[in-house]
C-alpha cells in the first residue's frame, strides 16, 4: 500500500487532544504513522480542517425493512437517480438511498464506519448482502434482542448465563455486532396488536416487564464484556409526555458499571433521544423536555445517547417498533408496511413529511438540537438522524451547521409558520452555545468510536489507528458563513479510508476496501442453551437450524471479527 502525507491542515482530534493545531498526518499501509518516506504522496491541507473518519453509531441502511422502504417508494427516487461514472456504480434515492449511494454519500461526508441499527436475526443474510454491496464504509449490524423469545424466557427466570450464552450464539449465527433493544416487550405484544407503553407493562403471555428485559440485557452484555453496551430504543417512542418513560428507562441503568477490555465506559446507549423527550399530554400542548432528559444524562457517566435530529424533510420512517408505525399510519394515513418476524421481532415502515409549517415537526426539530447543545460531555452525545426516521443521513452537514451557528438556527426557528408557539414550547431560542470543530469531532468521531468499543481503531488520528483521514475545505481560523460549514461537511476535500484515497474534491474516486465488523464472543459450552435452540427450531421456527447461520463466505467477503473471551 502507498504512503500519504496530509500536510499543514488544522487538525481536530479528541483522541490525541489536538484542538486545531497545524499538523501533518502521515499514512502508511492503511495505518496512521509518525512519519513517512519522501516518496509519500502529499496532500496540501493548508487552510483546511483535518479530522479522523466519522463514525455512525445508529442508522438504518441495510436489511429487509430498509429495502422494503426502497422498493415501496419509487417516488423517493423519481428524477433522483444518477448514472455511475468513472468506475462507480449508479446511485439513487433520497430518504432511502440504494446501497451504492449509501456508501458513496457517507464517504463524501467523511464517514468511514457505519452501524446498521436493527438486524432481524432471521434476515441476517439479507442485511449482510446489502452491507457487502455498500461500497467503501466499514459496517456492522446490531441484531435485535428485546423481544426475542429465548431472551424473554431466560430473563423471566433470571437466567443470566443462559442469556449471555444465547447472545454469544446469536451474534455468531447472525455475524452481529451488539445487543440492540427496540421497544422491549412492546414488539412481542404487537404480534397480538398490543404494545407496552411503560417499563412496567407486562408482555402478554411471557409475563415479563420491559424493565426486567432491559436490566437483564445490560447485565448479560457486561457479563460477556462486549465492545458496545446494550443499545436501546425505549418504550413509548414518539408520544407526548413520553419523557417520563425515557427517564424510567435511564434509571434501569443505575448501578451498572462497564466491564470490557475496549475502553468503553457506558453500560447503556439510548438512541434517537429526540423521539423520547416529549412533554405535554396531547399534540396541542406538546413541548420539549430536553432539559430534564439532559440533566439526567449529564449527571450519569455510564450513559451515552444519540440525538435523532429532525431535518425537516420528507422521509421514510422505519423501526422494529411495530406498534409505533401502526400508530403513525393511523395519524398520517400514508402507506404502511409491517413485518412480524417469528420468535424475534417486527418492523414497520411509513413515509413521513416533517413540514416546517407543522408545529409539532418544528418542535421536534428544536428538541434534537437542544439535546446536543445541552450536552456537557460531547464524548457521550452523538449526532444522528436515526436515518431515515428523523431525516436522511445526508443532512448531517446541515445539522452541524445548526449546531455550530446560532445565527443559522435562529434564522430557521424564527421563520417557522408557528414560530411563536414553537419558541415557547422549546428551549432552543435561549441557547447561545455554538459547538466548536473539536466538539463536532467528539460527537461524530471519538465519542461514538469509544461507545462502540472501537476507540483503538477508529475515530482518531493517533499512530497505530486505522488511516481514516478526512480533509474539509473550511478554515477554522478564518471567518465563514453558516452555509460554508454545510458545504464543507457535505463534500470533503479528501477522504482516505483505511489508507486508500476514496474521495477527492468531493467526488468519489474509488470503491474502497470495505470490511464487515462482527463480534465473536466465546462462552463456556452451554448444553441447555444449545438444547433450547434445537427445540425452538424444531417446533416453532419455519426454517431449519442448519439453514439459519450466516456462515460468512460470499456474504462477508472481508470480515473484521472482534474477539471477546467470556469463558470462565
Amino acid at each position, binding site marked *: 500500500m502507498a504512503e500519504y502525507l496530509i500536510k499543514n491542515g488544522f487538525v481536530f482530534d479528541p483522541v490525541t487532544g489536538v484542538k486545531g493545531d497545524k499538523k501533518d498526518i502521515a499514512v502508511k499501509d492503511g495505518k496512521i504513522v509518525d512519519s513517512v518516506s519522501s516518496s509519500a504522496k502529499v496532500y496540501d491541507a493548508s487552510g483546511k480542517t483535518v479530522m479522523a473518519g466519522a463514525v455512525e453509531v445508529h442508522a438504518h441502511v441495510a436489511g429487509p425493512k430498509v429495502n422494503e422502504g426502497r422498493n*415501496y417508494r*419509487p*417516488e*423517493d427516487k*423519481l428524477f433522483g437517480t444518477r448514472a455511475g461514472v468513472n468506475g462507480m456504480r449508479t446511485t439513487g434515492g433520497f430518504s432511502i438511498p440504494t446501497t451504492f449511494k449509501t456508501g458513496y454519500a457517507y464517504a463524501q461526508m467523511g464517514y468511514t464506519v457505519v452501524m446498521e441499527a436493527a438486524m432481524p436475526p432471521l434476515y441476517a443474510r439479507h442485511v449482510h448482502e446489502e452491507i457487502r454491496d455498500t461500497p467503501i464504509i466499514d459496517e456492522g449490524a446490531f441484531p435485535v434482542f428485546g423481544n426475542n423469545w429465548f431472551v424473554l424466557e431466560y430473563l423471566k427466570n433470571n437466567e443470566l448465563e443462559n442469556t449471555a450464552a444465547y447472545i454469544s450464539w446469536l451474534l455468531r449465527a447472525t455475524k452481529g455486532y451488539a445487543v440492540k433493544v427496540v421497544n422491549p416487550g412492546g414488539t412481542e405484544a404487537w404480534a397480538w*396488536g398490543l404494545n407496552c407503553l411503560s417499563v412496567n407493562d407486562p408482555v402478554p403471555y411471557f409475563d415479563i416487564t420491559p424493565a426486567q428485559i432491559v436490566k437483564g440485557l445490560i447485565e448479560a452484555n457486561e457479563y460477556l464484556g462486549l465492545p458496545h453496551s446494550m443499545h436501546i430504543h425505549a418504550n413509548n417512542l414518539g408520544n407526548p409526555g413520553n419523557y417520563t418513560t425515557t427517564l424510567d428507562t435511564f434509571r434501569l441503568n443505575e448501578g451498572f458499571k462497564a466491564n470490557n477490555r475496549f475502553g468503553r465506559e457506558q453500560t447503556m446507549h439510548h438512541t434517537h433521544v429526540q423521539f423520547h423527550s416529549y412533554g405535554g399530554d396531547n399534540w396541542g400542548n406538546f413541548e420539549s423536555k430536553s432539559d430534564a432528559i439532559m440533566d439526567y444524562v449529564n449527571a450519569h457517566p455510564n450513559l451515552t445517547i444519540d440525538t435523532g435530529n429532525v431535518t425537516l424533510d420528507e422521509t421514510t420512517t422505519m423501526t422494529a417498533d411495530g406498534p409505533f408505525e401502526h400508530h403513525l399510519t393511523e395519524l398520517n394515513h400514508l*402507506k404502511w408496511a409491517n413485518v412480524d418476524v417469528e420468535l424475534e421481532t417486527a418492523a414497520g415502515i411509513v413515509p413521513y413529511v416533517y413540514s416546517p409549517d407543522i408545529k409539532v415537526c418544528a418542535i421536534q426539530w428544536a428538541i434534537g438540537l437542544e439535546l446536543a447543545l445541552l450536552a456537557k460531555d460531547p464524548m457521550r452525545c452523538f449526532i444522528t438522524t436515526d436515518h431515515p426516521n428523523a431525516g436522511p443521513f445526508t443532512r448531517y452537514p446541515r445539522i452541524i451547521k445548526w449546531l455550530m451557528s446560532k445565527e443559522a438556527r435562529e434564522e430557521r426557528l424564527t421563520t417557522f409558520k408557528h414560530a411563536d408557539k414553537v419558541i415557547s414550547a422549546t428551549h432552543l431560542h435561549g441557547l447561545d452555545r455554538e459547538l466548536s470543530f473539536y466538539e463536532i469531532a467528539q460527537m461524530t468521531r471519538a465519542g461514538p468510536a469509544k461507545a462502540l468499543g472501537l476507540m483503538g481503531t477508529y475515530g482518531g488520528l493517533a499512530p497505530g489507528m486505522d488511516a481514516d483521514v478526512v480533509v474539509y475545505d473550511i478554515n477554522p481560523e478564518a471567518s465563514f458563513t453558516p452555509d460554508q460549514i454545510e458545504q464543507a461537511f457535505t463534500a470533503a476535500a479528501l477522504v482516505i479510508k483505511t489508507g486508500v484515497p476514496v474521495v477527492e474534491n468531493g467526488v468519489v474516486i474509488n470503491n474502497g476496501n470495505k470490511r464487515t465488523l462482527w463480534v465473536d464472543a466465546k462462552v463456556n459450552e452451554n448444553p441447555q442453551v444449545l438444547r433450547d435452540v434445537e427445540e425452538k427450531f424444531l417446533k416453532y421456527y419455519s426454517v431449519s437450524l442448519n439453514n439459519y447461520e450466516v456462515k460468512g463466505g460470499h456474504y462477508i467477503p472481508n470480515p473484521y471479527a472482534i474477539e471477546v473471551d467470556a469463558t470462565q
Partner: protein
Amino acid sequence: METVTLTIKKAPTLYLEAEATTPDALAGKSLDQIRALPVYMGNEEFTLGEFFEIAGAPGATAADTRVVVKGDVSRVKYLGMKMSAGELVIESNADMYVGAWMTGGTITAKGNVDSFAGTGMKGGELTIMGNAGNYIGSAYRGDWRGMQGGRIRVKGNVGSDTGYFMNGGEIVIEGNADVHVGTHAEGGKIVIKGNAKSRLGGQMVEGTIVLLGTVDVMMPGFKYVRDEEIEVDGEKMTLSLYVGDLGERHRKRKGEPIYGKLYLRPVKAGEDAAAREARLARAREAKKARFAPPEGSASA
C-alpha cells in the same frame, strides 16, 4: 409570442426521449443551441437537430415561446414534460408522458397520446383532441400526490386509471373511460361524458366524479343521497348524488364525514324511489348498529 417549429425528419428505429422540447428548454436559445440539445434512444444520445428540422425562433422566456411539433411523433416520449409556461402544439399522435409533471402553460395534442399524459400535473392546460392511453392525470408509482392542479380535456376515449390518486384540478373526458376512474382520489373533479366501466370511484376519499353515460358495475360502497342541480363543463343539469367510497376512511368536518361525490344521471322515478327508500332504511339500521362498537376494537 415567438414560434419554434420542430419537424421530425426521420423516424427513430426504436423510440425517442425528447424532454428538451418544452418552451422552458428552448426559450432564449439560438437555433444552433436548440439543434445541439440532447435526445435519447436507448443508451445512445443524439442531438435534436439529427431528428428534427428546426425553424422559427423561441421567445426570451418560456411564456413567450410557442413550440409546434410537426410530423409523426408517435414514437417520441416526454413532449411537454415539466413544462411551466408557454405553448406546445403537437400536430400528430404522440407517445407517453405528454405534459407529465407540467406546472403551467398550454399543450394541445391534435392526435392521440399514449399513457401517462399529465402524470403528477400541477398546473396548466392539456388538451388532447384524440384518444389517450392509461393513467391520464394520475400519480407516479407509489406517490399519493397525483394530479394536483390544472385542466386536462380529452375529446376521445381514455384507457384505465384516469385520475389515479388525484388531489386537485379537473379532467374532462368527452368519450368513454376504461376501468378505475378516480381510484384513491382525495380531491379534484373528473367528468366523463361517455360511458364508464366498473370500479368507478373505488377507494375514493374525497373529490368529485360526474358520469353522464352508463357504468356497467357500480362499486358497492356508494349510497344515494339526493338529486342536485350542478354545473357540468359549463352546462347546468340535475343529477343524482351518491357518496362514497363507504369502505374508505373519511375525514370529518363538524362531526360529519366528508365523502367522495359521484354524480350519475337520475334513474327513472317509480321503481327507483322504492329501492332508495329501502336502502335508506337499511342505512338507518346500520347507523344504529354502529353505536355498539365491535368487540375488541381499538379505543385509539
